[in-house]
């Protein structure tokens, strides 16, 4: 099959008519771009391959209904972005993957946070934290700023672990009420 002369539009028309050979041309044309994109964000070859698979399978199985309003390249770029996020959403919930993703994906993600925005967040959070009741504030700071575990805090303050948990939950609850969802992000980053 002579393929080099085919435009994306031609290829897509043929794919829509269930032409497997045309899909192979599309695949060969774009797989590497998608793979490199995914690999730069999920530094694992097998994860990046899974993402490319998902993009391609989805495109092939939905060829009859997918309506490409932009270019094929733009569509695939948006698709790989979506699949990378969908992959992370799934993987972040898998016990077996968490530790490794915290070492690979998380730091990279954090490096993309605007430092100015982060500062602004943190000063807002600090203002709210300092308004918390004294005991609650102490527990909150030990957990968030000193990164102590619930057990360590309970020993340090000589209260039960359940008390520590209750205090923490109450503090998050109060902060959430005052800071709205937007600022929660900042709370997570306090010790960075």
């Amino acid at each position, binding site marked *: 099959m002579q393929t080099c002369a085919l435009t994306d539009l031609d290829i897509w028309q043929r794919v829509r*008519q269930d032409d497997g050979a045309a899909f192979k041309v599309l695949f060969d044309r774009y797989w590497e771009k998608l793979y490199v994109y995914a690999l730069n964000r999920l530094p694992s070859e097998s994860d990046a391959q899974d993402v490319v698979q998902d993009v391609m399978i989805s495109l092939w199985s939905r060829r009859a*209904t997918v309506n490409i309003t932009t270019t094929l390249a733009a569509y695939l770029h948006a698709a790989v972005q979506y699949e990378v996020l969908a992959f*992370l959403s799934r993987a972040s*919930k898998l016990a077996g993957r*968490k530790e490794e993703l*915290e070492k690979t994906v*998380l730091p990279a993600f954090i490096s993309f946070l605007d430092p100015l925005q982060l500062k602004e967040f943190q000063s807002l959070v600090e203002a709210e934290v300092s308004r918390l009741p004294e005991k609650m504030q102490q527990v909150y700071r030990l957990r968030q700023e000193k990164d102590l575990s619930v057990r360590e805090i309970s020993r340090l303050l000589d209260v039960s672990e359940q008390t520590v948990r209750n205090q923490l939950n109450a503090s998050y609850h109060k902060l959430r009420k005052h800071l709205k969802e937007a600022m929660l992000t900042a709370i*997570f*980053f306090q010790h960075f």
Partner: protein
Amino acid sequence: MNIEQLGDIIDRYLAGTATDPEKSWVEQWLQQRPEDLQSLAPETQNAVHDRLWQSFAARAGWQSARPARIFPVSSKWLAYAAAVAILIACALWLRPATDHLPVVQTISAQPGSHKKVTLPDSTVAHLFPGATLTIPDDYNTKDRRIALTGRVFFEVKADAARPFQVTSGKIVTKVLGTSFEVMATDSLHAAITVRTGKVGVHFDGRPLAELTPGKRLRLHVQRQDFSIDDVNAAMLCEWWNKGMVFHQEPLEEVVQALSGWYNIPITITNEKWKTEPVTIRLRNLSAGEAVSLLSQTLGFRYKKDRNNIIIY
């Protein structure tokens, strides 16, 4: 901050409910980077390409990477029995990062494990491994519409006021209260089996057939026709506890079901076996035992190659 919190932010982003700072943060990470334009080293390039293509072909249900038959656009209407679930992805891809996406829930059974779910109207769905259901947020308000890919058995809660209908590509199955199974695993075959009650099957907007209990409708896209036969629906439709039952199915489709069930690629290299009809029940077996039993029944030979099983 840990990865779970990041996962939550991503989930909100995908659902269109992320806050502005969260949204711009995710988008900064997604943004094109200079290193995205680099090519792979030639030796890795070939290896990765081949691996990707082979597993794509296996997952897409292509027996080999040979060109599929081309149907002219104006050919008979059956040329498009494509089974498609409109994933939320679709909406997201076409309009990335808009705030008011239609809320759609998708439920999938991973390859290698099946899933039983109860829908908001207490209809029960059994998802064969690899199947996906798409449920719009207005499900069970005026009517009960659902889309699927793969194989799903429904026990529909009777509710005459809210018709229940399942869409898979151009095939729409409508019911009032009944139990039936829809199987639309690829674009070339679809099957609808009725266990109780009565269902109407529509294709591309036209009524195709009304099915009563024990009837199975099979679409054959290649032959551009459909057929209705009598099956033991109770056996066929209860694969999650009675095992997988096949009734005069071509081996190609049986193997596809096994691949999904066990999450192991199984390929048939010898053309003549693909269409061989199989009637068998496979229950409580390992993948190897199932293939061995099939091989004794039909007489084909097979070999294990790393994680694949090849029938020849």
